[in-house]
Every structure is written in structure tokens, then in C-alpha cells.
């Protein structure tokens, strides 16, 4: 995409620092280009965010968990769209794969009487593996396809999800979905923090892992190969890159990240159901990526926060207005879709670099102003 091309080129030129992991809470220090520096920034950000959970009430910690789960998916999606030019409308389906993978594993382990770290970690691992495998399959089918065709394929997949869950309702629980038995907070913490806060920690750690790994990927030879394939497939092929492999790889990684996001949602909400991963939600992920700033990891964070906060704000407004119940029920959900859709159109046409692009431009302006004042 041109927009992301320019954004990415600007990033390479150095005036837009490469998205670094720990952008979620608060401002971050000037970025250092070493891997160790990035880990340090990520760790600092994570500590800050975990500290913030102590200031939030359980409901807000729950919202924070949702945002962290969304970050996993939007970060994966923004890399896919921005780095390889592959448009997926079906990332909710990969989240669902992760959620169901988590749910089935967690329930099976709990059934077998297993507890502790195994019950906490193994389901996450299985979720990521399942989503990555499914992503590899879809990526292989779609890797030779142009944007619109791949978008159509992924759209079909997300629309088929309810059919899958009701066809295999014995295993997947049909429209109702599954209740998930999960490992709760460790005994030692139960006196100190609420379970919501613990869940937020788990979610934040997951999001931090995804962001660090994807930032590393962006700097690695694989990331450069992805960009080469997006910018000029023919030229990439001539320099010995196999575009098919690179695209499938990107799709698998992106799906794995979304799968982890789905697993976090399953862990936090203790449920996995088809209704939670419908078409609207899948399109919301795209909105988050575009509005945040396609191809940038900080943008994925802004977008995920928007996904959580905007519906909350809308609900607050519609609740406050003196509307008849009928109107409220019609506005419920739909008004958010309307606003997100309008945002998507307007941003794509008027400000295709999104929030992160605007922030980078703003910072550049401030910096040039300060240098000007110091020099005069």
C-alpha cells in the first residue's frame, strides 16, 4: 500500500522510529536501535502498565484485558497488511481458532485434574499453534492472490464460522459456544489483587510478547524480505526471495498473533462462542489497524484502545440521552459500527497514515520548531 509504503520508508529514513513494543501506556523514551534496548523499553512499559492495573477498578481492568487481547490481533494484522500488502478480513476467525483451541485444551486439562502453571500456559501454547497452523493453510491458499481476492477468501472464512461451530456442535458447543474452565490467580496473590487484575496482567504480558516479537521481526531479514515482496514481487524474486514462502510465513505469524489474542479473550471472558468473532468484529480489527496507522505497531495499540473505548463512550452517551427503549436497542452496537465504518472511509481518504502518522508528523513539527528556536 502506498500509505504504508511511505510510512515504512519514512521509518527507514529514520524520521519515524520503528514501532517499538512498549507504547501502550504513557510516553516512551527515545528509541534505541538495539535489540537489548527494545527489550528494556518493553519491560519498562510492561512494568508501568502492570502498575497502572493497581489504579483501576475491576471493570476497567477487564477493559484493559480486552484491549491487550485486541492488541495481539491488531499488531498481527497491521504487520500483515503493512508489511506484505495482504489484506485479511478474517482475523476474527483466527482469534476464534485461538479461543476454541484454548477452551478445549483448558477444559481437557481441568477435566484431568491438572492445575497450576500447566493449566495456565499449555492452553495458550495450543491456541497459538492451532491458529498458526490454520493461518498457514489459508496463507498458502491465498499467497498467490492479489489483495481483493485474498480479502474475499478471508471474508468467506469468517462468515463460515457459525456454520462450523454448529456443524461440530458436539465439540464446539454450537451457537452457545463453550464455557472455559481456567486457572485463576495464584494462591499467594488472591489476598492482594482481584482476579480481573490478574487477568489484566496475563493479557498485558501476552500483548508485550507479541509486540516485542513483531518488532524484532520487522528488523530481521524476514521482515525486510516481506517488504521487498510487497514493494516489487518480481524484483524480490530476482534477488532470490521466494515470495510465496514469505507471504505464507507472514500470514502464519499474523494468524498466530491473532490466535494468542483470541486465547487471551477466552481466558478473560471464560467463554469461546461464535457470536464473539463475527463479521463486524473482524472488520473492527481492520478499522483499528487503519485508524491507528497501517503497518505501525504503536498504531495497532492506538487502534485496539479505540476498539475498547469508543463503544464504551457511545454506550455512555446513548444511556444518558432520553431515548425510548426501542431506539436504544437499535442503536446498541449498530451506532458503533456506523461510526467505525465512517471513520474507516474518512481516514482512508483524508489521512491514510492514521493516528500514528499524525503523531509522528506532530513530533516532527515540534522538534523542528525547537531546533529553530535554539538556533536563532
Amino acid at each position, binding site marked *: *500500500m*502506498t*500509505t504504508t509504503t511511505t510510512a515504512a520508508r519514512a521509518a527507514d529514513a529514520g524520521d519515524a522510529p520503528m514501532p517499538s513494543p512498549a507504547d501502550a501506556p504513557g510516553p516512551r523514551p527515545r528509541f534505541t536501535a538495539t535489540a537489548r534496548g527494545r527489550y528494556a523499553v518493553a519491560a519498562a512499559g510492561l512494568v508501568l502498565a502492570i502498575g497502572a492495573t493497581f489504579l483501576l477498578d475491576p471493570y476497567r481492568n477487564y477493559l484493559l484485558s480486552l484491549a491487550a487481547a485486541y492488541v495481539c490481533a491488531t499488531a498481527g494484522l497491521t504487520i500483515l*497488511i503493512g508489511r506484505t*500488502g495482504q*489484506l485479511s*478480513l478474517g482475523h476474527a476467525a483466527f482469534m476464534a481458532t485461538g479461543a476454541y483451541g484454548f477452551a478445549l485444551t483448558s477444559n481437557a486439562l481441568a477435566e484431568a485434574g491438572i492445575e497450576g502453571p500447566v493449566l495456565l500456559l499449555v492452553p495458550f501454547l495450543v491456541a497459538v499453534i492451532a491458529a498458526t497452523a490454520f493461518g498457514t*493453510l*489459508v496463507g*498458502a*491458499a*491465498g499467497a*498467490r*492472490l*492479489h*489483495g*481483493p*481476492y485474498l*480479502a*474475499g*477468501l478471508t*471474508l*468467506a*472464512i469468517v*462468515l*463460515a464460522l*457459525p*456454520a*462450523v461451530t*454448529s*456443524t461440530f456442535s458436539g465439540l464446539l458447543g454450537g451457537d452457545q459456544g463453550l464455557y472455559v474452565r481456567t486457572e485463576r490467580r495464584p494462591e499467594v496473590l488472591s489476598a492482594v489483587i482481584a482476579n480481573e487484575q490478574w487477568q489484566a496482567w496475563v493479557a498485558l504480558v501476552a500483548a508485550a510478547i507479541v509486540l516485542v516479537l513483531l518488532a524484532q521481526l520487522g528488523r530481521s531479514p524476514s521482515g525486510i524480505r516481506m517488504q521487498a515482496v510487497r514493494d516489487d*514481487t518480481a524484483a524480490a524474486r530476482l534477488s532470490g526471495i521466494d*515470495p510465496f514462502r514469505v507471504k505464507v510465513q507472514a500470514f502464519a505469524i499474523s494468524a498466530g498473533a491473532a490466535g494468542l489474542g483470541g486465547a487471551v479473550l477466552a481466558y478473560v471472558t471464560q467463554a469461546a462462542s461464535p457470536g464473539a468473532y463475527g*463479521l*463486524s468484529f473482524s*472488520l473492527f480489527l*481492520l*478499522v483499528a489497524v*487503519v485508524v491507528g496507522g497501517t503497518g505501525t505497531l504503536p498504531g495497532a495499540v492506538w487502534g485496539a484502545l479505540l476498539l475498547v473505548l469508543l463503544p464504551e463512550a457511545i454506550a455512555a452517551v446513548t444511556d444518558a440521552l432520553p431515548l425510548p427503549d426501542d431506539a436504544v436497542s*437499535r*442503536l446498541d452496537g*449498530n*451506532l458503533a*459500527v*456506523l461510526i*467505525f*465504518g*465512517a*471513520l*474507516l*472511509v474518512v481516514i*482512508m*481518504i483524508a489521512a*491514510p497514515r492514521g493516528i500514528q502518522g499524525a503523531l509522528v508528523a506532530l513530533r516532527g513539527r515540534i522538534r523542528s520548531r525547537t531546533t529553530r528556536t535554539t538556533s536563532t
Partner: protein
Amino acid sequence: MDVPILLLAGTGLARGAIFAAFALALVLIWRAARIANFAQGAMATVSCYVAFHVTALTGNYWLGLAAALVSGAVLGWVVERGVMRFVDRSNPLAAVIVAIGLVMVLTSTLAIAFGADYRPMPAPFPREPIRIGDVAVISPYSLFVLAVVAVLMLALALLFTRTGVGLAMRAAAFAPEVSRLNGVRVDRMRTLGWTLSAAVGGLAALLVIPTELGLNPHAADLLFVYAFTVAIVGGLDSPVGAVVAGLAIGVILTFVTAFAGATFAPIAIVVILLGVLLVRPQGLFAAREARVA
């Protein structure tokens, strides 16, 4: 179980004809503007709501059908002139993403205005099959659908092969700069392509809704996916491919529905898509460079 093969085949063909018409609408915009119109399902649903209300007010199905065509055309014009024209053409994904935004705006507006309930859509002819002896053959409504789509195809074929406007539209689609140098107003042809396509899409959706659950803001979501599958199998550049693939997929899905239940149809579509793409990525018809990166 005694399988009414003949009835299923006829119903399947009628369904396939609708898919073909809807896929043809996608082909029209693709050829006119190189845009895969992901908003086509939502736009067609808006047309169907117009038709539904016109029919409800006048008690006349045919006025509703005319209203679907007209409102589709108007909506196509508005979307092209008001939105798509301003999309960055150098970015191949931009138009798709903007179209997705339109889907969200249109479906949520419909849901806010009319609610999410399914409304039964009247059919102008009975959907019970005609019987010859003991054998159920085909329903009058299926015959009606086949006739409408046949007339539509014929009209489009004539438009594109026999008229100056059709020639100008084809030329503008294949070679925009050469066409401009020959005095063809390419941007008007593009608008016309959108107008025509949206009218065809509205008509196709109007035909399919009586055979589905009813009218709902998301009534055309699956129709869009089926038609898009048709386009992948047949090629977005190929009207003939759209018709052949449309009929084939209509029949396949009808048999799948009869034997495995209606919920299985979307899975069958994904399986067909994955299968075609993994085994023959160039599609079942001639190799189409357009969709390969």
C-alpha cells in the same frame, strides 16, 4: 429418501443464475474501475429495503422490482461520485478498505432505521414446484428467476457488443489513456459502470431474498461471498466465466444444502475456495494474471 434430482437441479440453476448475476455486477465494476466492490452486498441490501417498502406501500411486486433497479443505480452513482472517486488509486487495497467502511455504514444504518428482524419478502410466483405426474420438476419462481437473469444477460451482452456506449465502456476499462485520447470520457464511463453494476446487484439480491430467511440488514452478506467465490473461480475479468461458474456453484450448493443441511453451505464454499486456490491457483478457467500478485 427419494431424491428429487430434477427439482434440485432446477432450483440450483435458478440460484446459480442469481449468483451469476451478482458476480456479473462485480465483474462490471472490476472492468470499469479495477475495484473489487466489497460494498456490493450492502448496497444491494439497501435497494432491497427500498423495493420492500415500495411493494408494501403499493401492493405491487413489479413496482418494487423497478424501485430496486432505480435505487441501485442511484446508489451506485452516489457511491462512485461521492466516495470512490476520492480513493487513492495507486494503493490497490485502499478501495477494498473504503468499500468495507461503506458496508459498515450501510448495514448499521439499515439496522438502526429498520431493526435487525427478518422480514418476509414476497415472491411474485409460487415457490412450490410444478408436478408432472409424481415428479416435482421446478417451481414457477425458479422459472421466473431464470427468465429474469436470462433477459438481464442478454441486455448486458447487447449493450456491450452492439452499442457505442458499450464499446466506450469496454475501451475505457481496458485502456483508459488510449480511450481518453480518443475522446471517451473515461470518468463518466466509470460512473456508468458503477451505476449499472449496482442496479444489477440490487436486482440479483431482490431475486435471492425470497428463497432465503428474509430481508435483514445482513441479507446479502452470504450472497456476496458466494458471488465472490464465483468470481474467483470464473475470473473477475470474465463475464462468461461468471455465468458458467455461477450456475455450477449454484447447483453444487443446492445439492450440498439438500444432503448436508443449510448450515453446511458456507463451509462448502470455503472448502471449494481453498480447494480451487490450493490445487489450481490460476482458477478453473483461463489463467488470469489479474489476481496473481
